[in-house]
């Protein structure tokens, strides 16, 4: 399969970024991870990935970023046809009530992870979000069964009418 599905992490603090990347290790083989330090970089990375015929399946985004904040970035991405399909998770300790509500209403936020997270918790969220992403966006779900939620994928496949021609 040529088309790759990326995980994009937007986070300005280096240690936090390293920790996220390390905790996502088990997905790396199937879903390459890209990193961006701020909103501008995130846009560039997304453009680059899409230009090369790949997809962004999941965006893990910090709220407090230099320049444009995470919630605003996610709302903006929601306006782009391709980026709107990406699953969006806010990973933050500091987004206030209002920002979070805004993100849910306007950026179609899929999940909120409060810092500090545990590895298991992060893996669980990423697994669930990527599973939903591939079910909604990919025709052939079988290759994902070895890494994502096999039960859910299998149910989705059995409900699609599969034919023999």
């Amino acid at each position, binding site marked *: *399969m040529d088309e790759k599905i990326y995980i994009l992490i937007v986070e300005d603090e280096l240690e936090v970024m390293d920790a996220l990347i390390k905790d996502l290790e088990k997905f790396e083989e199937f879903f390459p991870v890209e990193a961006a330090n701020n909103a501008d970089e995130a846009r560039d990375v997304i453009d680059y990935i899409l230009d090369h015929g790949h997809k962004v399946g999941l965006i893990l985004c910090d709220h407090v970023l230099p320049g444009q904040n995470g919630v605003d970035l996610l709302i903006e991405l929601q306006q782009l046809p391709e980026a709107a399909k990406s699953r969006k998770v806010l990973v933050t300790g500091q987004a206030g009530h209002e920002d979070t509500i805004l993100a849910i209403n306007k950026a179609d936020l899929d999940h909120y992870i409060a810092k500090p997270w545990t590895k298991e918790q992060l893996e669980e969220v990423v697994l669930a979000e990527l599973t939903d992403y591939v079910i909604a966006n990919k025709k*052939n779900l*079988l*290759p994902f*069964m*070895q890494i994502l939620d*096999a039960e859910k*994928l*299998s149910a989705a*496949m*059995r*409900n*699609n*009418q*599969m*034919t*023999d*021609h």
Partner: protein
Amino acid sequence: MNATYKQLTSIIIGLVGFLIPFFIEIPGLSEAGHVALSIFCIAAIFWMLEPVPIYATSMLVILLQVFFLSKQGVLFPEVSAEYTPNSYTEFIGTLANPIIILFLGGFVLADAAVKFDLDKNLTRVLLKPFGANPKFIILGLMVVTALLSAFMSNTATTAMMMTVILPIIARTKPGDPLRIGLALSIPFAANIGGIATPIGTPPNAVVIGALTTQGIHIAFTEWMLLAAPLVIVVLMASWVIILWMYKPASKIIELDMSGSFQKNKEAIFVYLIFGITVVLWITESLHGVGSSIVALLPVAALSLTGILDQERIRKLPWEVLWLVAGGISLGISMESTGLAEWIITSISWNMFTSIFLIIAFSLVAIVMSNFLSNTVSATLLIPLAVSLATSGAAGEGFSLVLISLVIGVSASLAMMLPISTPPNAIAMSTGTIKTNQMTKAGFAIGIFGLMMVTLYALFYWPLILN
């Protein structure tokens, strides 16, 4: 539309093929035969190169025939000495051909089975007696897969069964050949199992549809009586071949098949309808109600109860019905315009013995359908076989049913490449096997299948048919 270079080239080749018979006069072929040849050319090229989906080509075939070959079309409004044009309703009527309705019934049953997890739960129950020895687990998986795919689509069965074996594969050591054996056993068993019943796979529909237009009726059980013994032999041989090529290193497999049969009212109703329909199908000789008529029972019963709701009706694989209908339509015009007979009589068949013809048709069907869709291969070959038999060119002892069976069964025995059948493609997409592993095992099964088809066609089928 974003046509690629390859698509464009294929379309141009198809159009050129379509135009040639308009400009080149072929001696001995009627004017209508030329038109039928045009349609045959564009259909064959589009089906083989697939610039458009194969069901779309079938729709095009029906359109072209209605326009150019029907009594209501532009070219042949009058009966002539050479050609008595079919009414356009004969071409579009293939969409309601009995075999299409039988398939519809099969689709509806399969859909209800999936909705209520009947397939999954049957798998669980049926696998239990096979224990934990890898050899017998593989056999069990193959038997269950073949059984399910005889009543559901091979593709859907494979997808479901892959979800059973992938967790096992994940727990097996990377170098264990068991992984390859497991991943190959499912698609192969599905391809083979589809042969067993009329509703098992579309090539069967092509064969039965073509025979129906010749006035030959094949009952559900009659097909099973002809096909199932072959299925069992080829299935067992495939099991042996897979074990021989990929001997499992693990001594034990744990199957985790949790779950239980749903027991709500709707589910029980579905089990009942499923049971009644299958029983009526296999007892046709007792009550005489044709299998296509029986097929309407699940369609109506499940719609009336809302189990098959609007959304699920929309999701039925209608394109398969169009695909087969287009093929049957093409067969009708190839026959009535004399095209098929012209193609056949250009070869002096009486030079060949009937055993040679059986091997030749089987081989051609296997080779073709390794590269093309099984349905398309059967569709292209059947009209030729029909006129070979009806024109009497092949001499005595050459039966129409026999050669049609040879083609239909052989088309399903092609499984060398990932592109050969959708089940193969599914197995490949899991990343557990390499193409050459599939090719090696698929080749062995193909050769064995070819020999079996020949033996059955010589000794067993004539016994049943007479």
